[in-house]
């Protein structure tokens, strides 16, 4: 059926053998001669003033080579806490020693005197005036006060008329909302379309609920690690396990005042990232500082426990959501007020709150979101950052409405889904996306229409949307005398993107996939490349690779036209050789012969260049259905069936695409059912796999994946980014299935057994 020979086919990945033989070099596998072991010294309190740091005992320990603190950071950018710590595990200093155990011992010997301060861990407590102010009194108005103050400002600007009466009336109005002065606010975001009040008034059914989504850790299996080596000329080499070597290079340059040309970042094979592996401060900067100070290579590697206390996990949040619809199933209005737990710094994905709009025609929408400081580490991206949380609220509530109006959840969604050209609430107009196709595909595959449920069994459905990012990248392609092709680039491969790039180039140069090899350079040797996050790689690097291959293709035709004495228009590259289209008998010359010939031409060897930065991306949809069975006695939920479909645009390597769908769905399942970073008075209390359970193969059945292909106009061969969408609907899919099974809606994740038992009890079971 396919017009293509290499793209669209399942192929083994380019890194297959090294990954199954243990040969792949991950960050902690790098061991330059003379390497020292670094260790971070961490706060033992979640909120405290630092009175003193005494390193003298640690310095005397044999084997200790250096101890650094914030005083060693030239830019002054916060790498280590100085006067105050804001979370348990915040770094205060770092040591380098000849052995990992000695480094750990030395870290224990550093004596820190604290003055312990009151702690706030809960977002809803942190916004109250009684909460300790983490960064002074950062207050913001809530939605009502904000609107009233905006009106007051507007009136006071109008000088022509006297508005003092109206203004005093509005000021009196403000008094009605004393609780709407929020404390510890790190950021805010607001959007609006239509008039929600009017929309709710016109609705027949209005549902309102509060959804609580926990902070979870990306839990990539390789903890953060970097190895740095500063030589006497000032040149710094960093082996970094990171999604974005170029971002790490500029981050180190900015923090440590080192010129870009003096820093080479070598991206090592990475043990997962999921958005959490972009930070420069966590291990890379301390490793460079320690290496500069000791003149020896230094490895800084986090333990799993350190990952939990000082990683940058996905933010938890509280979303108050209200939806109104008519009896016949039209959604009229939706309003959200969200508080995102951004931890000790700003940066939670608060802008993603807008995703409560889903893929539906909602004429009236209002979204107010706040980032809130608490005594936790900062947060980072996790696979479609912010979307799983917002979509959990949106899709859970949709089922409640469907139930109240007595409509099938799939039909209700299909009826409200946007179509090409429809207005996107607070955001432009909808392109062609396979929303309905994807939902219908999962419903058919799962057997939704004739579903059966035994006692305590239930079915749940949900959809989630996400749009891949896009960023700058460069690719070179070189064709060699044996007809083989080599690719050079600088983007990190985690999930098989190097394979997709190789397939695209093989397709265009019409060579077998096996004749293509790919080299990922470091920041010294590769063209600039955006970080591997936001599902950008296949879209961006795929397009870049296509341009590079087309450039080489052009040169191939030029060379062939010289060799075959005919115009380029008469030539065609097919099956690794250039053919004269009209020649009889056939006349052709192979790529290898052309590459050999090119070496003695004025134009020189066949080198194609591709460079790309931006094109509009197209949204993608993931739709999922779960069938579960809940044991009302123990509260345990067993998944009987989990089916996931996704509009991927075009699947360049179907096996890899399925792998993304399956993996993302299981991460979503875990967020729904088991994962939660828990915090006590003094910080994180479950920093390990015993108390922070992630799923194993024993927890789940096979995930059935269904690929839907509605091409993206600007994607390579129509491909969209596939990594992020599959996690977005699963939280709601599971909650909706549990609701269907036991008749009780759980709005606070994770749906642990004890919560189910409590919910049943409260419901009179």
């Amino acid at each position, binding site marked *: 059926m396919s017009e293509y020979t290499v793209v669209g086919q399942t192929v083994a*990945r380019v890194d*297959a053998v090294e990954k*199954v*033989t243990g040969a792949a070099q991950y960050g902690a596998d790098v061991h330059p001669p003379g390497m020292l072991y670094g260790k971070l010294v961490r706060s033992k309190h979640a909120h405290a003033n630092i009175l003193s740091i005494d390193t003298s005992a640690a310095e005397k320990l044999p084997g200790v080579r250096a101890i650094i603190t914030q005083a060693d950071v030239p830019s002054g950018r916060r790498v280590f806490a100085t006067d105050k710590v804001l979370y348990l595990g915040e770094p205060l200093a770092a040591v380098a020693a000849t052995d990992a*155990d000695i480094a750990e011992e030395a870290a224990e010997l550093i004596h820190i005197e604290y003055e312990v301060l009151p702690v706030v861990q809960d977002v809803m407590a942190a916004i109250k005036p009684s909460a300790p102010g983490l960064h002074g009194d950062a207050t913001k108005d809530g939605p009502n006060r904000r609107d009233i103050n905006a009106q007051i400002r507007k009136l006071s600007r109008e000088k022509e008329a006297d508005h003092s009466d109206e203004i005093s009336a509005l000021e009196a109005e403000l008094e009605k909302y004393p609780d709407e002065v929020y404390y510890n606010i790190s950021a805010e975001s607001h959007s609006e379309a239509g008039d929600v009040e009017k929309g709710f008034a016109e609705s027949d059914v209005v549902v309102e609920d509060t959804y609580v989504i926990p902070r979870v850790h990306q839990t990539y299996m390789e903890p953060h690690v970097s190895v740095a080596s500063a030589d006497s000329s000032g040149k710094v080499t960093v082996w970094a396990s990171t999604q974005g070597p170029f971002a790490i290079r500029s981050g180190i340059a900015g923090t440590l005042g080192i010129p870009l040309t003096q820093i080479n970042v070598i991206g090592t094979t990475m043990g*997962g990232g999921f958005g959490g592996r972009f930070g420069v401060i966590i291990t890379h900067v301390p490793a460079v500082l320690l290496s500069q100070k000791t003149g020896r290579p230094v490895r800084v590697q986090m333990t799993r426990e350190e990952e939990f206390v000082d990683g940058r996990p996905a933010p938890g949040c509280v979303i108050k959501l209200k939806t109104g619809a008519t009896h016949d199933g039209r959604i009229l209005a939706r309003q959200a007020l969200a508080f995102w737990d951004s931890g000790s710094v700003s940066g939670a994905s608060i802008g993603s709150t807008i995703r409560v709009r889903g893929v539906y025609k909602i004429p009236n929408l209002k979204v107010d979101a706040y980032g809130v400081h608490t005594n936790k580490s900062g947060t980072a991206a996790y696979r479609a950052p912010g979307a799983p949380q917002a979509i959990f609220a949106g899709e859970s509530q949709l089922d409640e409405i469907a139930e109240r109006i007595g409509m099938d959840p799939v039909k209700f969604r299909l009826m409200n889904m946007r179509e090409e050209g429809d207005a996107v609430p607070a955001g432009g107009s909808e392109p062609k996306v396979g929303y309905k196709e994807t939902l219908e595909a999962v419903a058919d595959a799962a057997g939704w229409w004739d579903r059966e449920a035994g006692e305590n069994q239930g079915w749940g459905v949900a959809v989630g949307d996400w749009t891949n990012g896009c960023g700058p990248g460069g690719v070179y392609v070189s064709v060699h005398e044996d007809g083989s092709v080599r690719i050079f680039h600088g983007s990190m491969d*985690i999930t098989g993107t190097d394979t997709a790039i190789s397939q695209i180039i093989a397709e265009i140069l019409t060579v077998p996939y096996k004749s293509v090899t790919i080299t990922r350079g470091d920041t010294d040797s590769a063209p600039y490349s955006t970080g591997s996050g936001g599902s950008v790689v296949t879209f961006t690097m795929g397009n870049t690779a296509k341009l590079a291959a087309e450039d080489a293709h052009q040169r191939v035709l030029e060379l062939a036209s010289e060799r075959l004495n005919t115009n380029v228009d008469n030539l065609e590259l097919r099956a690794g050789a250039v053919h004269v289209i009209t020649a009889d008998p056939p006349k052709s010359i192979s790529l290898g012969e052309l590459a050999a010939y090119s070496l003695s031409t004025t134009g020189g060897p066949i080198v194609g260049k591709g460079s790309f930065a931006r094109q509009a991306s197209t949204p993608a949809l993931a739709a999922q259905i779960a069938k579960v069975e809940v044991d009302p006695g123990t509260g345990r939920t067993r998944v009987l069936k989990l089916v996931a479909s996704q509009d991927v645009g075009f699947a360049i390597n179907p096996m890899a695409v399925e792998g993304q769908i399956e*993996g993302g769905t299981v991460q979503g399942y875990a967020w729904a059912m088991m994962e939660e970073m828990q915090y006590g008075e003094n910080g994180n209390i479950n920093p390990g*796999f015993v108390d922070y359970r992630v799923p*194993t193969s024993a927890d789940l059945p096979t995930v059935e994946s269904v690929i839907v292909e509605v091409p993206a106009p600007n994607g390579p061969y129509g491909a969209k980014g596939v990594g992020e969408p599959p996690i977005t609907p699963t939280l709601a899919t599971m909650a909706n299935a549990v609701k269907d099974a036991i008749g009780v809606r759980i709005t606070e994740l994770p749906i642990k057994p004890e919560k189910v038992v409590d919910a049943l009890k409260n419901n009179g079971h």
Partner: protein
Amino acid sequence: MAKHPVSLTVNGDEHDLLIEPRKTLLAVLRDTIGLTGTKEGCSTGDCGACTVIVEGKAVTSCMVLGVTAAGKEITTIEGLASDGALHPVQRAFIETGGYQCGFCTPGFIIAAKALLDENPARTEEEFRHALGGNICRCTGYTKILEAVMQAAEEIRTTA
């Protein structure tokens, strides 16, 4: 800290080493011998990334002290391929797409090999439970199980 002389056999090679009693077998394999294919994901025995075979049994090497492995036969991921040919489990992982980032893969392959050596006639459900000590964060396990079932089938039919 005082070091102890220890001999162990890893992938058929004998190593005479001086190791501190506090070093784990994982640290000995990775740092002392330089076999870095075995991974460290938690160092608390909970993720399976460090799985190696000691005297025919799969163990998490982060939970074993190096000195206690003295005189024992150890197989790591580096020792699985023989005569340049990949082990059926390794091949199956490639063919089914049983890995993504690959960090859990050595541990999974070793754990699966030990199970298959013991009894390749398990059902998928049995393998799902038997492999419950290994965490993979990328694949969602579907393709890992496919790989293990494929390798089991091959081993059963060629045995």
